[in-house]
């Protein structure tokens, strides 16, 4: 009879963020021996350093912004101010209340062994952490990602901020150059501009939010410029940065012309890179700097090693990481393997107005050579835009030639709440007519969805 190897654990999860925690909990609840290893703060990036603290700050910023613009509704708000240390204290409270931030004790109570340190594979079934060797029959790599630092001359000689470190600043800087006009870049641009920072936003492509439909990026650029005084510099590349007094001088190249701007701080939000420096070669796992290669069932080329979350180098959404983690738990526990379904995963940008996207964008459809119909309902045609005095936004729905909804983009207050109706439609193949025939409450923002769906011509 073949010798059966004894391992310390049934599963070792490397990374305690969204990609690792769900699988660790599910598998531990089945009575298996599980260990979780975290190199940074337990809970991972989302509750500690990105989603939760940023959204807590944005909530405070939006309240402040609405209040200072309340004069037109008869509110006396001319003397309104803010205390940034108190706002930071609110952010810390929000992080603490999630229960997911710095939650090492939680895992211990679930019977999961925890280790704080960087894990490094030394063989396909063995890792080392703090010079302690641990073996397991299965591994889940959920090490997440880190902010990528682009090659800019002089960047190594100055102190720069990232969307993570700016949350710990004592006060908003007087002026800020943000490198990267993606989701994090625009959220922080709006946050800091609301608190009075002069923001410059440099993006290499021709519009902000290059992954979204063009209308969304263009509208947000206009809102940021007109309402917040942000200087949006599209098609601009930051060439070099140097220290100048207490601030920094940034040289930007735009259409071959170089311009310079002096700012107090620089924030790098030019995308994220998967954390793959954990001795994957020793385990024989195939990977590239763009992420770990997995099959449909999130299994690497080494059968007992799975990967989930940002380390795959996909879209880096927390809810996708949780979905992948659950899929991995199922695929470790059961013979009938399942694959994650990303077709109706919503993506939300928490600016004001919010931006929410689901399914295919118009660019995606063009790339796939799909025949589509589309309809756009501007917010100013619905009643709520009158009572809320807010008109900048739209709902755009894309369908195939039979009217089945393929994707949608919403730019609207509460877009993050509205998108799930269309996510349901994308997931279950509903037609625009079915959505249009569903009653939508008068004076809700969702009326714009009904109007857009009704405008689709088949």
């Amino acid at each position, binding site marked *: 009879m073949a010798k059966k190897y004894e391992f310390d654990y049934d599963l070792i999860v490397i990374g305690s963020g969204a990609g690792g925690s769900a699988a660790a909990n599910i598998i531990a609840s089945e009575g298996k021996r599980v260990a979780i290893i975290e190199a940074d703060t337990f809970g991972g990036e989302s509750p500690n350093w990105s989603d939760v603290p940023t959204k807590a700050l944005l909530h405070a910023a939006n309240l402040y912004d609405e209040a200072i613009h309340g004069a037109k509704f008869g509110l006396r708000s001319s003397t309104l101010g803010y205390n940034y240390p108190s706002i930071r204290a609110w952010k810390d409270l929000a992080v603490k209340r999630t229960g997911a931030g710095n939650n090492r004790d939680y895992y211990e109570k679930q019977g999961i062994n925890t280790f704080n*340190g*960087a894990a*490094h594979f*030394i*063989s396909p079934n063995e890792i*080392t*952490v*703090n*010079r302690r060797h641990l073996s397991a029959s299965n591994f889940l790599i959920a090490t997440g990602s880190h902010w990528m630092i682009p090659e800019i001359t002089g960047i190594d000689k100055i102190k720069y901020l990232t969307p993570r470190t700016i949350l710990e600043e004592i006060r908003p800087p007087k002026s800020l150059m943000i490198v990267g006009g993606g989701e994090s870049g625009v959220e922080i641009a709006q946050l800091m501009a609301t608190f009075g920072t002069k923001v410059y936003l440099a993006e290499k492509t021709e519009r902000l939010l290059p992954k979204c439909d063009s209308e969304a990026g263009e509208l947000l650029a206009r809102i940021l410029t007109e309402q917040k005084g942000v200087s949006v510099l599209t098609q601009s590349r930051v060439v070099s940065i140097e220290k100048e007094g207490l601030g920094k001088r940034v040289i930007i190249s735009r259409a071959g012309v170089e311009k310079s701007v002096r700012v107090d701080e620089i924030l790098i939000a030019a995308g994220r890179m998967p954390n793959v*420096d954990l*001795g994957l*070669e*020793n385990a024989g796992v195939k990977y590239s700097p763009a992420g770990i290669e997995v099959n449909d069932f999130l299994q690497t080329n080494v059968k007992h090693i799975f990967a989930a979350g940002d380390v795959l180098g996909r879209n880096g959404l927390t809810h996708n990481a949780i979905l992948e983690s659950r899929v991995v738990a199922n695929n470790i526990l059961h013979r009938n393997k399942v694959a994650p379904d990303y077709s109706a995963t919503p993506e939300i940008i928490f600016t004001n107005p919010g931006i929410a996207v689901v399914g295919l964008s118009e660019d995606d459809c063009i790339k796939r050579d799909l025949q589509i119909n589309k309809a756009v309902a501007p917010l100013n045609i619905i009643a709520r835009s009158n009572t809320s005095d807010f008109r900048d936004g739209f709902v755009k729905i894309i369908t195939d030639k039979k009217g089945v909804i393929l994707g949608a983009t919403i730019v609207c207050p509460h877009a993050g709440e509205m998108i799930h109706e269309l996510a349901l439609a994308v997931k279950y193949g509903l037609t625009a007519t079915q959505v249009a025939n569903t009653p939508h409450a008068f004076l809700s923002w969702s009326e714009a969805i009904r109007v857009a769906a009704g405008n689709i011509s088949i």
Partner: protein
Amino acid sequence: MLLPAVVISSSHPEKVGKYNRARLRASVITACLSVCTPEGQAESTADAVCDDFEVWLRNKQEVTTRDIVIVSAKLLEKYHTEAAYIYEQRHIII
């Protein structure tokens, strides 16, 4: 600089030792010289690779000999592509 990393042999995991800069430097120099790099350039390249490698090693507690080869080869590629190839394949090139 004190580097705490312990090096585990990839082929014989029971064999462990300390990271040895001189050994890494010598192997990089040999790879550079084997592709006709001038001696001075080979030495400065090896120093640069060792410095970069030690930056990578700084937050590691235990690494394997295989890690040293793979990471050094990647770092060497920045300075000398041909030498990096020779360095990585030196055990199978006769």
